[in-house]
């Protein structure tokens, strides 16, 4: 594919790992690094901004109850919705994403991830849970109308001890392939900072005139 003119891109990383250190964060970092490397090959410099959901846990509960995100959580939300691409990684709990992971995406304004290139990943104890990515995580992002990369990367505990490049489908290969897919989705769109204000009119700056509201029955 043709690379668009080089320009600064931002990839936001959302990690819902709870441990310190966390294997979820480890996978998230590797996915972000793979995407960054692939974007560099396409001629784009990329900045990675990581949101550790654990840091915002209390404020996410507050926001669920009050209806607004405050302080650092608001910044995190803006980082994610304003990025060029998103790496979203969750631990698998009870055959699904973790509550903390879901809670963050529940806080986003409707439409704010529309068209966003997303690379999804998950971690768990055994590979038996890997389809959680396809049955739970991917449908959530499909609902949010994000553009999810075809390859989703699951890392079981055992993957961290397997050889990197011996098998065709080792974790390293999966991460690299997923990174390339995210990079091509990101590179295919104009940079987020140029898109702002173009497609999505700000309803507080540029309201629908009243005569039109009245004529259309307010729709």
């Amino acid at each position, binding site marked *: 594919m043709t690379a668009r003119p080089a320009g600064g891109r931002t990839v936001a990383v959302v990690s819902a790992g709870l441990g310190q250190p966390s294997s979820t964060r480890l996978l998230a970092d590797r996915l972000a690094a793979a995407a960054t490397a692939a974007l560099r090959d396409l001629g784009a410099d990329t900045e990675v901004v990581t949101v550790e959901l654990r840091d915002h846990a209390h404020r996410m509960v507050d926001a669920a109850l009050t*209806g*607004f995100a405050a302080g650092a959580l608001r910044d995190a939300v803006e980082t994610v919705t304003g990025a060029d691409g998103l790496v979203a990684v969750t631990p698998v709990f009870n055959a699904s994403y973790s509550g903390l992971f879901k809670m963050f995406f529940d806080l986003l304004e409707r439409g704010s991830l529309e068209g966003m290139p997303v690379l999804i990943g998950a971690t768990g104890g055994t590979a038996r849970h890997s389809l959680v990515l396809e049955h739970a995580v991917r449908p959530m992002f499909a609902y949010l109308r994000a553009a999810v990369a075809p390859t989703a990367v699951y890392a079981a505990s055992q993957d961290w001890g397997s050889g990197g490049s011996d098998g065709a489908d080792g974790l390293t290969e999966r991460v690299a392939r997923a990174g390339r897919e995210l990079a091509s989705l990101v590179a295919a769109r104009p940079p987020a900072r140029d898109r702002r204000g173009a497609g999505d009119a700000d309803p507080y700056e540029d*309201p629908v005139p009243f005569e039109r*509201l009245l004529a259309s*029955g*307010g729709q």
Partner: protein
Amino acid sequence: MQFGIFSVGDVTPDPTNGRTPTEHERIKAMVAIALKAEEVGLDVFATGEHHNPPFVPSSPTTMLGYIAARTERLILSTATTLITTNDPVKIAEDYAMLQHLADGRVDLMLGRGNTAPVYPWFGKDIRDGISLAIENYHLLHRLWREDVVDWEGRHRTPLQGFTSTPRPLDGVPPFVWHGSIRSPEIAEQAAYYGDGFFANNIFWPKEHFQRLIGLYRRRYEHYGHGSADQAIVGLGGQVFMRKNSQDAVREFRPYFDNAPVYGHGPSLEDFMAQTPLTVGSPQQVIDRTMKFREYFGDYQRQLFLMDHAGLPLKTVLEQLDILGEEVVPVLRKEFAALRPAHVPEAPTHASLVAAARAKADEAEAAR
């Protein structure tokens, strides 16, 4: 500038003793609070409208009519009147009747309501919320201004040759505020008609309301009702006071921590930093309220939420004494000193009648 109180009318257990007032007690308490508002020199009492427990005020004009009979100066208003699920014809009739009984001491605040099941209970669809608010108010506006109305819309039975009675007192409809916490469409609607805009800012950060009020002001000017700083803005506020701020915090904390809206969420301290909630001394409330003017410009109506979160009636009445004696007199003086001469007061029945007469005289002179 007008100062007053607004009540949601919730029946909430007092978290300090577990006691829940009966509906009867709560309704009588709302009346006692309204009478106290007049006694301590406030200008406005506004009641919410709800159609589900644990809220009592389903019939605002009944309550306001009763309060009107027992007060002399207090303006009776709503917070809010559901323009979506009420029949606009019935709103026109009920509030015109109230306006006559109260000798003009009536205005109302329209809102959409955010309780999803209320829409189907009243035969409406919540997805039509904005559309209902736009169309129903357009009809209400005409019913109060045209003696005979022919009308057809999407949401209601058509009208042919309909006259809403009684006609508004002195031919002047009650002033209308449009209440919204997030919809730019409602700010646009208020601006189009030159009506008031009430931003209930008590649960969210100020940055959001600066944008919403800024939009209303710009569009008010756009539609030719005056300059942006002459638009008619109302704001909410939420306070709890004691002479010593530590006492206020200590007494209010259990009510905050268990409040239905934000309880078990942010800490009292976080919520005070993020929203207009002020728990402290009367001077702190004065300082905080004066800040609203800096954030939103000179405005016309300040309503405080005082009877919520299960606070007992006795405490609420004490709070109203403090508000009326120590806070509002200072705010009146300070706001008045800062207000430029071209910024109007909130319209009242008397000022609207005077304006209508002046306009009629002008038309007469031009002939």
